[in-house]
């Protein structure tokens, strides 16, 4: 299943609801384009909802890191919401869990941007 991305706004935070796979050739480019588009429009608060991401590979992990660094370099903040067990385990394995600000609850995540 390829990646689908839906965007919504809550209290000045752009929430990207991701669903599917973030892998080489199946979502990495879509995610990169979505982040660049938001940054280009001047959005400074981005929340990636990964609750429906059922698979991610090393390329997808790299894309998450790139999204984080691109946002940071442009003065924006990117956080993660609702990791599936697989994504959670991979972020722990790769120690990327220490890089990202991660939330299980959307309201708490939105509030953290204030």
């Amino acid at each position: 299943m390829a990646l689908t991305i839906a965007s919504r706004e809550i209290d000045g935070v752009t929430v990207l609801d991701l669903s599917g796979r973030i892998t080489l050739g199946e979502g990495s480019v879509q995610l990169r384009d979505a982040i660049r588009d938001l940054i280009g429009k001047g959005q400074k608060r981005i929340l990636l909802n990964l609750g429906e991401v059922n698979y991610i590979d090393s390329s997808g992990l790299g894309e998450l890191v790139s999204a984080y660094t691109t946002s940071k370099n442009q003065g924006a903040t990117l956080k993660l919401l609702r990791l599936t067990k697989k994504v959670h385990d991979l972020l722990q394995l790769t120690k990327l869990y220490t890089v990202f600000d991660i939330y299980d609850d959307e309201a708490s995540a939105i509030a953290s941007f204030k």
Partner: protein
Amino acid sequence: MSASSKGRWSFRLNSTMESVGEVEAAAERLATDAGLDEDQRFHVTMAVREATINAVLHGNEYDPALQIDVAFENTGKDFIFTITDQGRGFDPDRLPDPSAPENLLRGTGRGIFLIRSLMDEVHFRQLHPGTELTLVKHLAPEAGRT
């Protein structure tokens, strides 16, 4: 391929992303047949996918003249995956550790790390040209029986 059967299956594929998908799907089927639980199936499938991407992308560099050789084996004790590319080869011991603090924010370089983390044994063999990569997942005593 019959369920839970021991055996060996091998095939040769082009250096394309379609091949990666085929190998990944085969790994999922065979890991299920071998009796691996959900977490183990995920680990095997992901490691196989990463190894195949490595062979197609970094080994053969998508060269249509080069192919990958793939073999799956269920010995009853081990689930073994072997992939061979025809590329220039590399030294796996010289790869930077992507989990080191200075490398955490790098966008690439996690494939071999994941393979080593997810499988029980990983062996590299340089063929000059080409690299043979063997991944082993030990089966639980009740898994993999005929």
